[in-house]
C-alpha cells in the first residue's frame, strides 16, 4: 500500500515532466532580430537596363542616319 503510493506519485511526476517537455518542445520560438545593417535595395540593375535600352535605340537611329560612317 505504501509502496504503491510512491509509485503513483512517481508516475504523476513522470507524466507531469513528460507533459512539460512536450509543451516546451512545441512552443514555437520565433526570434525577431533587427538587422545590424540598414536595408538597402539595389536598383542599379533596373537603371542600367533602362539606359541600355535607351542607348541601343539611339545607336540604331544613329546607324540609320549616318550610313556613311556605319
Amino acid at each position, binding site marked *: 500500500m505504501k509502496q504503491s503510493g510512491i509509485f503513483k506519485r512517481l508516475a504523476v511526476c513522470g507524466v507531469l515532466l513528460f507533459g512539460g517537455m512536450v509543451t516546451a518542445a512545441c512552443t514555437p520560438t520565433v526570434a525577431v532580430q533587427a538587422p545590424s545593417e540598414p536595408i538597402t535595395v539595389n536598383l542599379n540593375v533596373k537603371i542600367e537596363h533602362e*539606359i*541600355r535600352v*535607351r*542607348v*541601343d535605340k*539611339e*545607336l*540604331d537611329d*544613329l*546607324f540609320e542616319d*549616318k550610313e*556613311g*560612317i*556605319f
Partner: protein
Amino acid sequence: MKKLLSGLLGLTLLIALPASALSLKEAQSKGLVGEANSGYIAVVQDGTPEVEKLVAEVNNKRKREYAAIAKRNNIDINQVAARAAEKLEARLSKGEYYQDNLGRWKQK
C-alpha cells in the same frame, strides 16, 4: 566660252571627287577594313594611305556621335562604343571582317 567650259569642268570634278573616294561600304566589302571590337573601324591588313585616311575620318565622326550619346545618357563613351561594337558586328554582311574579344580578325 573657254573660261566657262573649264569652270564647268572644274565644278564637275569637284562634285565627282567625293564619289570617287573610297567609301566605308566599299572598303568593308573589299575586306580592307573591319569592325574592331572597340566600336571603331580598323585596317585589316596592309592599309594604303587612302584606307588609313578613311579609317581616321570615319572613327573621328563615330567618336563624336558616341560622345553625344554618352553625354545624353550620363555614361562613359567607352560603354557606348562597346555596345556599338556588338551591334555593328551583328549588322555586317557575309564575308566582312570583325574583331573578336581577343582582337583576332574574323570573317562573318
